């Protein structure tokens, strides 16, 4: 049985990889066509020229900067399958760099996502990679602390609640987790800011200093708490359900009848099997956290990925927005894959087929 799995695993991964690439292609095409809708291009042109640009000026800016080239060529050059064309200076007729602040080449070159070039941010006037990498690092720290707070507390709540189904502890902890799933970030953020920043003054209502001066409890506790609360309830509910199911299993009763203590049974026998289901849920929680990241970063003025995404979307910064969507889609797809593989690995009854 085990010997065959090697080849099966390879085909499984290749298939998954193919679907993932196809998904990314489809989604980037959708995003690409949406950001290139006429009203969006006009918005970009107005923000790049001046507020009182005439229709003729807008149109000529768009033509000069290659935004009126055929869709396929432009998408191809973003991907790196079609040469990226420089602009033509209208007075001299020479080829000039398209975005000077990004050192765009003056000769047609293949330079797209495949070559590792994510293009140029028109809003921040720098290369997309230079903007996105620090932003992702900042968000990485936020995610890390959110996970570090959310997962242990959710698991503890779920296990304590599911240990004795129907007990008073179960009912009160269930109410806690239901309440937390009913509290989106923009609600809990308000409550926490009011309580901890305005009334008690214990915590900082803004995480803006975390980027420049480093992360401290004072500036980071509020965003982390706010994000952790919303996701926590859901994981706790799943853990509870899984725990309840495990606790009714025959082997738990056997262990109890052998004379093992209640808590020894839970730690030695119940936990491992009860944690399989929450693992997949935690992994699938990442895409959800992306939305949370955007809300929390805006609310607490933290310059991370979510903040960048909102800036990119608000200014129709095409390359930056495409890079943001690519990053988020990759996060979603990779966590789905980890969740599937991890589930198969943790659960002895299911093998990858």
């Amino acid at each position, binding site marked *: 049985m085990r010997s065959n799995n090697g080849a099966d695993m390879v085909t499984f991964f290749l298939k998954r990889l193919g679907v993932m690439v196809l998904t990314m292609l489809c989604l980037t095409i959708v995003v690409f066509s949406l950001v290139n809708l006429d009203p969006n291009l006009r918005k970009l042109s107005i923000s790049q020229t001046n507020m009182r640009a005439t229709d003729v000026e807008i149109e000529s800016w768009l033509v000069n900067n290659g935004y009126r080239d055929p869709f396929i060529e432009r998408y191809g050059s973003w991907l790196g399958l079609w040469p990226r064309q420089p602009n033509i200076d209208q007075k001299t007729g020479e080829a000039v760099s398209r975005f000077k602040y990004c050192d765009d080449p003056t000769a047609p070159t293949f330079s797209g996502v495949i070559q590792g070039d994510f293009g140029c941010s028109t809003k921040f006037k720098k290369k997309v990679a230079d903007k996105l990498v620090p932003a992702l690092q900042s968000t990485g720290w936020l995610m890390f602390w959110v996970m570090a707070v959310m997962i242990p507390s959710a698991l503890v709540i779920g296990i304590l609640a599911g240990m004795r189904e129907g007990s008073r502890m179960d009912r009160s902890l269930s109410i806690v987790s239901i309440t937390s799933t009913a509290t989106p970030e923009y609600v809990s953020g308000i409550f926490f800011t009011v309580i901890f920043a305005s009334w008690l003054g214990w915590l900082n209502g803004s995480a803006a200093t975390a980027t420049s001066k480093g992360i401290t409890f004072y500036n980071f506790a509020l965003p982390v708490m706010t994000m952790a609360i919303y996701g926590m309830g859901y994981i706790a509910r799943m853990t509870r359900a899984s725990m309840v199911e495990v606790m009714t299993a025959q082997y738990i009763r056997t262990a109890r009848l052998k004379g093992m203590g209640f808590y020894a049974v839970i730690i030695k026998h119940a936990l491992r099997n009860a944690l399989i289901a929450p693992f997949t849920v935690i992994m699938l929680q990442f895409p959800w956290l992306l939305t949370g990241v955007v809300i929390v970063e805006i609310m607490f003025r933290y310059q991370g990925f979510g903040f960048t*995404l909102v800036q990119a979307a608000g200014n129709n910064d095409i390359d930056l927005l495409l890079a943001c969507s690519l990053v988020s889609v990759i996060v979603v797809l990779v966590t789905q894959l980890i969740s599937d593989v991890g589930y198969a690995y943790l659960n002895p009854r299911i093998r990858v087929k």
Partner: protein
Amino acid sequence: MEYLSTFDIITTTFIQLWPTWLALIILVAASFAFQNQLGLYGRLFDSGVGIVGVLIVAFWIFTAIFADIIAPFDPLDQIVVMKNKLPGAIEPGSGEAFLFGGDKLARDVFSRVVYGSQIVLIIAPAATIFALMVGISLGLPAGYYGGKTDTILSFLANLVLAFPVILLFYLLVTPGITETPIPYAMAGLFFLFPIVFFVTLFYTRYKKRVEVLWIQLAITLVLGGWIYAGLVFNADPLGIISIDPNELNIFVAVVFATSPAVFRIVRGLVMDIKTRDYIAAAQTRGETPWYIMLWEILPNARGPLIVDACLRIGYTTILLGTLGYFGLGMAPESPDWGTAIKEGSRLLRLYVHPALFPAAALMSFVLGLNLLADSLREESMKD
């Protein structure tokens, strides 16, 4: 400026909400009186969690219905002296109090929260119903036929699910997009699903009884076509049904983001149910696939679907709030809770009340729905 005391604020708010309390009392009395004849709904009243859930949800439904009677002020009226006033400030003109204070544009927060419930309680359930229709109509064949149908539909659903919701909204609910035909095309597609669904539903069951069938089809097509014309083309001949382009845009985006999740649930349920004996029996009888899907499988999947619908209305409410919080779609002066939270949170360090009350309202409504769903799940599992 005169202020009411905290005690007076609470009692006045309580009195102001009298139509809601009256309706709640009638509802609870009727529910207890006829508890045994009310099926699943009646059994909700067996558990404390169920009663609390019903009460909270009903509270908001009645508040939305009686908003005109409850709210002392117009949600958009700006009374300059009341700008940023604390809760309980008495408006000099009418002598009525701003129970929850005034916001930064000097509007009554209490009236705005009350009127905001109308917007939330119309869009969230309606969008959820449409998402259910789309998800069911596509999930049934995907789960039942399997194979290529399933592969293609599942791929499309996963495509939408791989899209972070917030990015989707930023792309689909920008002001620019209402200038393009995209929202109308999507609305045209999504709103077709309920009509097709009901036509198929009646046709598969009554195709041999033409005298019943044609009445049902006529009602479906006339009613559906009427709503369809009003919503998609804004061309309701009677002028009753119309929707603001921004709201249509939000509606479509929410349905688009929600239906793949419904699709996945329905597909899973169908794959489970189709292995049962009564499905094999129906197949042996020679029933058509769509008859089996709509009249054998769907009724047996209703328990989990009702629970999911309940949770999903709550989730849609949160989504709507997110949209409002990012200033997407809704008009900036709209009293819906999300927009109010956004407006209020800008001055949060100075004035707490303009954001706090809509936030509490949104949370309590979603909490009510979650409690309701939880107790529905418990009760339906007892079967």
